[in-house]
């Protein structure tokens, strides 16, 4: 359960940015990849704890889950994968060790009220 420390980092990051921008954070937008090792539901409940007593106590965490994208050598193309259990090109079936995206754990935007 490392989601709480991650939620705290998100709150810190957002608070810092809000101070720079001047205003109140209403929502934090996060991009989350399945290979980040972070679970969406756990992060959402951790966020509720993390925001308490912070400069953004009523902010909302909005998570966009992004798929794992691999590069298939055989097809010479990027492919989205339906599952992490099988790193294999969904089109040609070749093994695809090269992960292009899917490790994201990134604050992409803040909604700031002024």
């Amino acid at each position, binding site marked *: 359960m490392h989601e709480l420390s991650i939620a705290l980092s998100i709150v810190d990051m957002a608070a810092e940015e809000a101070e720079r921008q001047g205003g109140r954070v209403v929502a934090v937008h996060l991009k989350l990849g399945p290979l980040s090792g972070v679970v969406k539901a756990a992060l959402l409940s951790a966020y509720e704890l993390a925001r308490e007593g912070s400069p953004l106590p009523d902010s909302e965490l909005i998570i966009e889950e992004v798929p794992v994208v691999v590069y298939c050598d055989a097809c010479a193309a990027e492919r989205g994968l339906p599952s992490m259990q099988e790193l294999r090109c969904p089109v040609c079936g070749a*093994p695809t060790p090269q992960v292009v995206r899917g490790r994201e754990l990134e604050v992409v935007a803040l909604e700031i009220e002024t």
Partner: protein
Amino acid sequence: MNETRLVQVRQNVLKQNDVAARALRARFHEDGVFVVSMVSSPGAGKTAFLERVLGSLREHYRVAALVGDLATDNDAVRLARSQTPVKQIVTGTVCHLEAAMVASALEGWQPENLDFLFIENVGNLVCPSTFDLGEDLRVVLFSVTEGEDKPLKYPTIFNTADAALITKTDLSAAVEFDRAAAYRSIQAVRPGMEIFEASAKTGDGMERWLEWLMSRREAAREAAVPSSIETGKGKT
């Protein structure tokens, strides 16, 4: 009326850890120490395996280990029997090691006097996957008693590791371990991954593993030479 605006940020949440890990990696390369981290579920045999590895390598190399646990220094005490420098990192309630913990554990140590540094992570197949520790290699261990589908259940940690090591192979027959199925699971979540098998009890499989480890260290040293000449920081 209040106005809400959308501010684009694009910040990696793990930036702090990544920065600390990068600093560690640069320092390890500078010092010429090859760093291997080990992750597994609790009880997969990390400490027993590491005891053997330290015992074998210390004949020819300068080795040391950092070992992370939620509580107790039992593992450090065990590993110290191998007569190599060992330091325990007690993480308290934290379920994984972070780069900053490694950095502070190294205070007062001279990694430049080492050839290999091993970092045994907290027993956990979930949380450690998220945190880079500045290591050269991350090895994920799982024992024959845990089931052949372990990699499918924890694809993230297997995907972020560089090699897989199947432990407690002396128990294979007793638990009817399906070796082919285990290999299939690993290759499914991490195609092309290097796989090793070992028994810390009998010593079976240790030779291949140690040879690979030494060759990876050599390869890292060779790769490091040109850049150290370029930057003028090379040691002679």
